[in-house]
């Protein structure tokens, strides 16, 4: 080999080495986040000869009975499947579960089974095969809904309330099972409404609520509110302002978002809603949980007339509520009425459907996923469904449980005591049962959780601004819209809405281990190249 050809060979070796290095780096970089778990495939059999340990992240309403029901469900399930251990981790806040799941996705330590909202699952789906699609499992003859090999009496697919099940379907798959359902209710101090000279209508309307609320602002010569004789009165308090905005828009057939994830929230109807909110915040007739505190605390102290909260908060509402955060001496006696949230069109009521759903995270071992699926399905058995529904104004998600004599008996006994048969709680559950066809959910897509936050924040900011003496006008609205779009990155949602692009955006920084690996590879190649160069120089010198 001539010197020229030898040099060319060396060059080609070096070029090749660099090329390989670059390719490796590109490949490795490209791999990050993209190579997730393999898609889950249903095993032929559930292998009961092996031991499985699964984690269940559950949400309760800071309610001891709910915790006890979860624990009993786990114990009963483990008795049926002694090879499965379920570890319970309790949360009292959906947002905290969401944050922790996001954190654990990065470290591949997601729970096996998780109580969640569909909005949140949409974000989890940005990981490849991270959440198990359930339709195959639903239909599995042996282990599916009502399957032949189950150790418990599971509901058949047709026994899950179809509307609740559909809420868990998006992106062409079922990614969750409904666990409990609730809606919002207006808990009313009927005594004060009547003392103010009003009679509750059959269907509550926004006009009625605003009118009575303003009437309740009248004060006497000593600066006490006439209606309660106290220094404090906020006639109308809303717990979840995101729901407030979403429902007010839906009731007026105004835009919020499309199914595809186009943002329609920032429209004229929204602006009109905010002007109305501003008007009544200015008089002091309206406030929110975030600004003032829990509606129940004010309602029970006789300092609020219309308290809107989840039906799952019913045990906190009313003079005789079994749960209360205020001291006995602050409680005021009054008659509590439970009604649907105010409507714009009383003939066509619309209200949100909400409540916990359960999703299953994929794992490398399909048998472990099967164990998760069996436990998830167990949560739909009558024992669990009825017991949990009775803790609050929830309703079971299966007709099997709803139609059972046990549940029907429970519903018929409202008011027998102020614990299990607390009338406000049972009225709240009946409110949803009687209005299932009037409920709706919002579209689920990557970013839909942020859009929901923005919807609520529009109201919160408007109320705060009015209370702080700021002017709420067209210019304010323009600024508010811009702020919300920026804060919640709503201008980026459209771009990130396809699975492919969202995967790319969610990749983030390379993990430290990957960086070390890449640097090590680079160092090895550099050493090889240096070695080759030294050898070349040595040979040249020798020649």
């Amino acid at each position, binding site marked *: 080999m001539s010197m020229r050809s030898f040099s060319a060979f060396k060059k080609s070796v070096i070029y090749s080495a660099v090329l390989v290095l670059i390719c490796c780096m590109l490949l490795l970089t490209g791999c990050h986040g993209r190579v997730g778990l393999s898609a889950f495939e249903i095993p032929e059999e559930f292998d009961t000869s092996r031991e499985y340990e699964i984690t269940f992240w559950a949400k*309760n309403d*800071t*309610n*001891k009975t*709910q*915790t*006890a029901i979860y624990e009993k469900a786990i114990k009963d399930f483990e008795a049926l499947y002694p090879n499965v251990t379920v570890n*319970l*981790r*309790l949360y*009292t806040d959906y947002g905290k579960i969401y*944050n922790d799941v996001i954190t654990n996705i990065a470290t591949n330590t997601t729970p096996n089974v998780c109580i969640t909202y569909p909005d949140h699952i949409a974000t989890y789906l940005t990981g490849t095969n991270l959440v198990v699609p359930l339709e195959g499992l639903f239909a599995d003859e042996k282990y599916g809904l009502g399957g032949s090999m189950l150790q418990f009496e599971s509901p058949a697919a047709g026994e899950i309330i179809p509307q609740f099940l559909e809420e868990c379907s998006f992106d062409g798959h079922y990614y969750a099972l409904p666990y409990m359902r609730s809606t919002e209710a207006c808990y009313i101090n009927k005594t004060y409404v009547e003392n103010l000279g009003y009679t509750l209508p059959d269907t509550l309307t926004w006009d009625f609520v605003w009118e009575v609320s303003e009437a309740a602002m009248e004060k006497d010569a000593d600066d006490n509110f006439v209606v309660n004789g106290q220094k404090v009165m906020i006639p109308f308090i809303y717990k979840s302002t995101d729901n407030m905005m979403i429902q007010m828009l839906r009731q007026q057939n105004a835009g919020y978002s499309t199914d595809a994830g186009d943002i329609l929230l920032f429209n004229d109807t929204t602006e009109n809603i905010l002007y109305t909110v501003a008007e009544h915040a200015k008089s002091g007739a309206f406030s929110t949980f*975030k*600004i*003032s*505190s*829990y509606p129940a*605390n004010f309602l029970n102290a006789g300092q609020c007339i219309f308290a809107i909260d989840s039906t799952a908060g019913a045990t906190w509402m009313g003079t005789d509520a079994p*749960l209360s*955060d*205020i*001291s006995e001496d*602050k409680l005021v006696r009054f008659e509590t009425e439970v009604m649907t949230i105010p409507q714009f069109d009383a003939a066509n009521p619309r209200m949100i459907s909400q409540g916990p759903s359960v999703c299953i995270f994929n794992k490398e071992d399909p048998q472990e996923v099967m164990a998760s699926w069996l436990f998830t399905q167990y949560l739909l058995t009558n024992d669990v469904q009825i017991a949990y529904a009775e803790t609050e104004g929830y309703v079971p998600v299966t007709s099997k449980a709803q139609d059972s004599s046990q549940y029907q008996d429970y519903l018929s006994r409202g008011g027998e005591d102020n614990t299990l048969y607390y009338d406000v709680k049972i009225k709240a559950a009946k409110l949803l049962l009687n209005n299932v066809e009037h409920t709706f959910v919002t579209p689920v897509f990557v970013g839909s959780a942020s859009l929901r936050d923005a919807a609520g924040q529009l109201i919160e900011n408007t109320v*705060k601004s009015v*209370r*702080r*003496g700021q002017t709420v006008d067209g210019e304010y609205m323009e600024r508010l819209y811009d702020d919300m779009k920026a804060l919640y990155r709503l201008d980026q949602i459209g771009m990130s809405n396809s699975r492919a692009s969202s995967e790319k955006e969610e990749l983030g920084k390379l993990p430290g281990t990957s960086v070390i690996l890449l640097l090590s590879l680079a160092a090895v190649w550099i050493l090889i190249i240096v070695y080759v160069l030294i050898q070349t120089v040595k040979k040249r010198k020798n020649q």
Partner: protein
Amino acid sequence: MKKFTAVLLASALVFACAGCGSKGGDTDAKSEGVMTYDEYMAAELDSEVVIETYVQAKQAWWEDKATVYTQDKDGAYFVYNMTCSEADYDKLKPGTKIKVTGYKAEWSGEVEIAEGATFEIEDGNYVAEALDVTSLLASDELINHQNKFVSFKGMTVEAAGQDENGNDVAFLYNWDGSGQDGDDLYFNVSLDGNTYTFTVESYLCDNSTDVYAAVKNLNIGDKIDMEGFLYWYEGVNPHITSVKAAK
């Protein structure tokens, strides 16, 4: 020369003593445009307030929002979810002086600076001594010390609730026992026939802290001394940071 040396030493001593007057810096003077504690307390709810205060403890940081317990020599200020980067949050230590601009608010009886306040770090340092408010527990005067770092002496642990077997227990995870290790701890303590509910706030003191372990080891009937921040939620609800056997 001796006289000069004596004067020099005396001067040095005076300056040194002056420096020892507080745990660091002059905590009296407020910058221009900054409210005194009395002015802050007199300010209407929902009005803009500007204060200079000293961080006493950090409760939580999440998504560029920080919640801190702060105090100057006249009174205390609870700052809820102020705008704060993680890097700035790391700079906040007990004693760090900050100037906070925000809006005064009240939430379930807790007077605070509302979410969204801004702050800047200033020169100065002050860590408050715990104020013994044991004798004020049953009095209307207690609220005047809201949010301060305080102590309670010689209180008796009472039953906080019952376990699943109906046995009395000295503490609960969450207010009703619905939680688990890592959640807030609630326990009851009594004095002169009155019983009060105190809390170990898990964001402020998580389950790795001494106080969390101490409360988990309480027995009904124990006599204890405590320190913490005089938080309010529908009545006094101190966030306890230290529990020791009563002296």
